[in-house]
């Protein structure tokens, strides 16, 4: 009692100044200097040694040597003042930063290089509004375009999604909501078929529909093969999305007397909507980029067609591949233009998925 009293009566002490918590990891000026010093001195050392002794084996070799020399120098410098486990920690940290930089640079260079090389084709407006009928691969870039390939991709992927989305989501509903004895073998087979290389899906459709039933090479055949690869992806991703729906929601719906169908229709599927959309978009992104399938099944036409059943139909990946194979500089420029369009489509889908995922996080 007395102590409490005395505390209350004590004159106010100055509040401690520290607002943020103490930093757990300190990186002092000394540490900064040892990093910078090691970077600079290893660069200088490799610059001399590499050019004079190793006979200049290219940029990649230079970077590898620089990194190795840096590790040795940096380890040497910090081991002067630090115990062994700190030295190890620092070396691992620098290695992880370099590994992350390598991955980011690889990804960034892919995106930037594709757009940079595609730019020469993209600046011509006819590239988006014409097809390649009666245009030679060697023709200058202000003739012809990839409209037929864009239309072909949209139609083929559209049909494939229209077929595989109900099948995939239906399978997921069967596996996670209905269940029963059949669920296990279905799950096993669906998981196994995600291992099917896309080229085999294409070859399967080629052998059965085109050789076996005598159908022409067409957009429809390509869509069928795409659907074969998309159904397992959608089914698996949707099942994951359905499984994270809280069981309490289902129980609440059941307790209110809703039938099973009503529960699935009005509670489970709407709750999992974002996850299902993500699954669909993942599958679309995969389908858009599938090269092996369209190479085998659709046949590369050079003209615009909206009919997927009879004529060969071009698509962006196939256009890229066939243009690349010709080896002509203008054709390769077109290939990069088409690759930029393809990449832009994937980026748009990707950003859509991100936004959907974020809205899910907000509502949950």
């Amino acid at each position, binding site marked *: 009692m007395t102590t409490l009293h005395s505390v209350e009566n004590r004159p106010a002490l100055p509040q401690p100044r520290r607002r943020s918590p103490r930093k757990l990891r300190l990186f002092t000026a000394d540490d900064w200097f040892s990093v910078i010093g090691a970077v600079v001195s290893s660069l200088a050392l490799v610059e001399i040694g590499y050019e004079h002794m190793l006979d200049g084996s290219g940029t990649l*070799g230079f970077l*590898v040597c620089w990194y190795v020399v840096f590790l040795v120098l940096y380890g040497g410098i910090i081991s002067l003042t630090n115990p062994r486990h700190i030295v190890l920690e620092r070396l691992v940290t620098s290695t992880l930063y370099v590994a992350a930089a390598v991955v980011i640079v690889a990804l960034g260079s*892919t995106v930037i290089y594709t757009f940079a090389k595609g730019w020469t084709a993209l600046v011509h407006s006819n590239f988006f509004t014409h097809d390649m009928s009666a245009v030679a691969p060697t023709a200058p870039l202000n003739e012809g375009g990839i409209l037929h390939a864009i239309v072909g991709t949209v139609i083929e992927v559209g049909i494939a999604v229209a077929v595989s989305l109900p099948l995939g989501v239906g399978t997921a509903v069967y596996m996670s909501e209905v269940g029963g004895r*059949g669920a296990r073998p279905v799950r096993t087979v*669906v998981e196994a*078929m995600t291992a099917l*290389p896309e080229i*085999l*899906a294409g070859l399967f459709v080629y052998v059965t529909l085109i050789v076996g039933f005598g159908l022409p090479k067409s957009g429809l055949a390509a869509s069928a093969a795409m659907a074969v690869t998309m159904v397992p992806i959608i089914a698996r991703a949707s099942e994951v999305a359905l499984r994270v729906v809280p069981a309490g929601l289902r129980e609440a719906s059941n307790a209110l007397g809703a039938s099973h*169908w009503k529960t699935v229709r009005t509670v489970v599927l709407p709750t999992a909507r974002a996850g299902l959309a993500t699954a669909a978009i993942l599958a679309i992104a995969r389908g858009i980029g599938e090269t092996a399938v369209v190479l085998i099944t659709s046949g590369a036409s050079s003209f615009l067609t909206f009919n997927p059943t009879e004529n060969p139909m071009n698509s962006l990946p196939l256009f890229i591949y066939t243009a690349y194979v010709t080896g002509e500089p203008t054709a390769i420029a077109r290939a990069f233009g088409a690759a930029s369009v393809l990449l832009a489509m994937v980026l748009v889908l990707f950003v859509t998925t991100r936004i959907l995922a974020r809205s899910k996080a907000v509502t949950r």
Partner: protein
Amino acid sequence: MPRPLSPGLQASDRIFHGTATVIGMSVLAITGAIGAFLGYQSIPTLHHYGLSFFTQSNWQPELNKIGIAAVLVGTVEVALIAMVVSFPLAIMFALFITDYAPKRIKSWLVSAVDLMAAVPSIIYGLWGFFLLQPHAIDLARWLSQHFGWFPLFHVDTDANAAVWQQSRYTSSAFIAGLAVSMMAIPLACAVMRAVFDQAPLGEREAAMALGGTRFGVARIVVLPFARGGIIGGTMLSLGRALGETAAVLIIISPAYLIKIRILEAGTQTISALIAGNFGNATKSQLSALLTAGFVLFVITLVVNTAAALFVRRSRSGASTEI
């Protein structure tokens, strides 16, 4: 007699269950039929060529010489090179995301991995051929100059010549493997990151409280916990690398030789073999291609199933989705 507690299914539910079962069963039937079809189609080929289908390295249908020895070796080579490159990068990038990266950029790095997985393989093929190859052949030459005594890195040309034959180093399994690794990294990294994130917080904090460094925590807590996820993710990406077509098709120049000189021009993989030869194949040749495809499917199936088992049986697999 007591009233039955379960009133049975309503009509709407019976329709719903029936429809869902039909969809599930038809997907089972269709996808199962594909696997069965591939297996069935390969019977005549295996009957005709017997074991020589696996030991013959030539693919010359006009001479009745068909075998997948060389393409099988090529497939495995390309996939293994991709693994050697992608495994360390994937595990380090995953660990960087979960334990080392500043909090602000963590979600950006996760997005970068997802984006990397979404880029079409043909774009990686173009990237590998036009941007990477001119640099990679320098590295290949350097390796063959200094480690050429090792058969893996040997190249049949004078590496030390003043004017070196660049074309001997292009279109090799090495460069194809580098491009394929770009597709393997995001797949493996996504699984590993998810598993690293699940490492128990209490154990992490305990290790830190005992004075562990970040690497100490990773070595004692995170990596042992995530062993199943690491193996599973790697094998998943191996399955993808084995079946990769477009990037490989763009980069390699076909050569039907069993060769372990990975830096030298020319190799062939099963998927590239199919893509290159289906067009003018007769019926029996198609069957041979299907058989090669079936072998590839069996391999990827085994690899993927093993991956799933590893993830499921390890401690980290308790609540992991891959």
